[in-house]
């Protein structure tokens, strides 16, 4: 793992200054986001959620509470769901992040058309598992990782899978249906 470089001269030892020339210290943070190397220079306190949204302009990941309860900001860090609002970008320098923008399998289908939908995305559409859409990216990333771990959940296991994400619009019933439908679609598509 590389140490994020900061803009002071001495980059071999992690620097300890808050302010250099009246400005907060910043670090070059590099992440592989949805398969692409992305770098931005940010202060240490920049959350991963803000890094994605504002520094990389990937606004699909949303921010709901900034204290880790709602799950709206959930992204995949090295494949596992984490709260991006409870992670500093600088702490995960060098790691790989998958966001909602990276959920669809191929960027375009064979005819160069608009992105194909992943099984989870397709299931959300079929089951009317979203209304305002604000919580949706957090659910989709969580469920995508959850099904990779447990491809054939029972209804109770599907509820457990989404138990850490809040939705204020749907009452969850359709989201649970979508988990089960996504599992079904994945089997149909022969994806593993």
């Amino acid at each position, binding site marked *: 793992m590389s140490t994020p470089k900061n803009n002071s001269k001495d980059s071999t030892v992690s620097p300890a200054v808050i302010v250099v020339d009246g400005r907060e210290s910043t670090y070059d943070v590099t992440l592989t986001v949805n398969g692409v190397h992305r770098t931005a220079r940010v202060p240490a306190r920049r959350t991963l959620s803000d890094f994605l949204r504002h520094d990389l302009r990937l606004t699909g990941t949303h921010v709901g509470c900034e204290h880790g309860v709602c799950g709206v900001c959930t992204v995949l860090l090295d494949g596992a769901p984490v709260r991006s609002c409870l992670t500093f970008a600088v702490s995960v320098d060098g790691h790989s992040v998958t966001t909602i923008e990276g959920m669809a399998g191929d960027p375009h289908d064979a005819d160069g058309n608009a992105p194909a939908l992943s099984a989870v995305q397709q299931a959300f559409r079929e089951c009317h598992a979203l209304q305002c859409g*604000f919580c949706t990216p957090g659910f989709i990333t969580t469920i995508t990782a959850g099904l990779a771990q447990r491809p054939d959940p029972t209804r109770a296991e599907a509820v457990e899978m989404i138990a850490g994400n809040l939705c204020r619009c749907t009452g*969850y*019933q359709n989201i649970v249906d979508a988990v089960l439908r996504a599992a079904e679609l994945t089997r149909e598509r022969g994806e593993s």
Partner: protein
Amino acid sequence: MVTRYVGQPIRRTEDLRLITGAGRYTDDIGGGDHALEAAFVRSPHAHARILDIDVTDALDVDGIVAIYTYEDLVGPAAQPLPVLIPHPALHAARTAYPLANGVVHHVGEPIAMVIAENRYLAEDAVERIRVEYEILAPVVGINVARAARYAVHDDVPDNIAAHLVQEVGSVGPAMAAAPHVLDFDLTIERSCSMPLEGRGVHARWDGDDQSLRVYSSTQAATSVRAAIAAKLGLSLTKVEVIAPDVGGGFGVKIMHPWPEEIVVPMAAIRLGRPVKWTEDRREHFISAAHERGQQHHVTVGFDDTGKVLALDVTFWHDNGAYTPYGIICPIVTSTQLLGPYKPGAYRVEFYSVYTTTVIVTPYRGAGRPQGVFAMERTMDRIADTLGMDRAQVRAVNMIQPDEFPFDQGMIFQDGRPLIYDSGNYPAQLEMIKDMIGWEGFEALRAEAAGQGRLLGIGIGCYVEGTGPGPYEGAHVQVMTDGRVEVAIGLTSQGQGHQTVFAQIVADELGVPFESVRVTTGDTRRFGYAVGTFASRAAVMSGSAVALAARAVRAKALRVASDALECAADDLELIDGVVSVKGNPTASIPLGQVAVLSNPLRYAFDEAAQAATQFARPADPNLPPVAEDDEPGLEGRDYYSPPRSTFASGMHAAIVEIDPDTSEISIEKYCVVHDCGTLINPMIVRGQVHGGVAQGIGGALYETLVYDENGQLLNASFMDFLMPYATEMPDRFEIGHQETPSPLNPLGIKGAGEAGVIPVSAVIASAVEDAVGFRIDAMPISPSILFGLRTEFAAGRVEPTEVGRARSSQTDHAARKEMA
């Protein structure tokens, strides 16, 4: 009209962008415009005089651009925010200033605005601003407000903002003559909408054009526009407001203008740079809006059949520190308390009182849940006193199907008579009883009791006035490529408006659903609107788009009949093609009709060539555009109802109480509801699911707790408990009934609030049934229930009559066993 789409569970147009992360919510707007960001100094005290504001240390923070206080506001912006809905009974309305002017009246009230390069720096600066306060007495809770030892506003010494009495019939004599009279108190605690996306404003001033564009996460774009224009001294024509994708509203975003909606655009104008504000979760808790908190005193007189002869309700409504939204919520409580019933005489009196807490404005249900709670608990009490079945008591009091339209004799929240247009309550009652298994429940309860388990069943009924006016409008335009652009003035927060209104237009006009695009909440596209609230969008905008689409269809046939040289009556319009009935070869695609509707001098594309002056031989003696006509294939119409339409429903639940832990679990939850014609049944079901979830949250988990100093103790998601999927019953079942409204073209009634309205009443009814003593305050938690059960076991709480009978049966059975 061919009905191909209306009534079908058409998949939503909105979904594709929302499931791929391509939604555009207010904080997503303006990537690349390097907007400055705002943060606010907010009062840490519930009631205080501001003695000094020292910004010296804040100016040192790198990246600070400007700091504003009240002194920086000019003209109308320096005046108090408006009272949106004045009412003669609101005799002591008070509103806040956009930035505090000398005195603050609740924790969270904005005092100063910091503008910086980003939110992190803005918050750093906020921390460094030193405000000196003289602490004044807090007033928290209805009892403290009523006692009026201290005043929230100096010039309102009794803390009463409004007082309203409405009476239908003569309650005094009717009560005196009633064979039975009951008298009791009820409480509902404060709660709130809490959408997952908070409020946000993004303002951009165009110096070249001298115009302002504001994105706001609002339910009322047109009204925000009017307020901003008024407060910042701009012409309406120089202000545009757009509600982009909005992450939920549930009522809280109908309140406007927020202070931030005024001062953030003000900063954008003064600084000549885009300025944005995205509230964080704590800000939302302490500076948006709450609702629900009321205390009721009910006196009811009834006869031996359970018929209500006289109902006298007095209640106190906690309206928080200010009254910018007027008294809509308590008025809704007063009028909707009646539900599906027709009491002999009814008197309702309310006091709306000030407290040093966050303002109170509508939250899904908007006062209805409290009214329903009062009425439904009354019905249960009557049943208990008489030893009657609780459903039977309700049946005895119901308005019958042949009594519509039914005039309740009151004025509703839209200022119009409370006249129920249609409904069939007895049929709903049969349906809900059947779904929940009402008749067979005693056997279920006894079986469970044998296993040491505590079950209870509850029921709750409501009527909901939806679709209040004054109007909504729609614009439908067929483009030359055949696509149909629709614009409506009201806004969307997840209800699928882009889908359902396209369904209506597709059917009314006769075009494929996929060719219709709907824009909502954008004053650039539609300038006259009211807003999204009171379950009115489908009724109001649905009717307006239907009318506008019909106008377009009529014009299309007229223009086509001219081109095809036949009568308009001989034509049909199906799938976007106009053709002669029985002769499909004589046809024109609708896009071409649009071209023909606009006679041109210049052809800018191939399609336009057909409309130019030499391409079509026109009658040289007639003007190309007739006197009563306009170019283009578009229609604009408005729907303005004579009064609201009345949806209705009933819920029932079976709960189980853990005898050791007092945990309350919902074993079964059923809903029957009538929202008239369904445009998209899938979307309606989704609305009901979501409403029930909020209702369950409000019954068992959610409450806002203020301490006596006016500090909100649970201003975070850790302590304000919204339910996760695990807190929902496994399944809730929904039954539909459709009694179309005679008041609008499609027979629609609203569905947005149906799920939430009676839930607290139902859960209270079921828990009371399980434990055998009164549940008069909601929400209830295991801890609260444990406390009540402990008191009950110690004999300090009276049982209900049913509870008394059941426990003596148990004693009797136990004694028999021992004998």
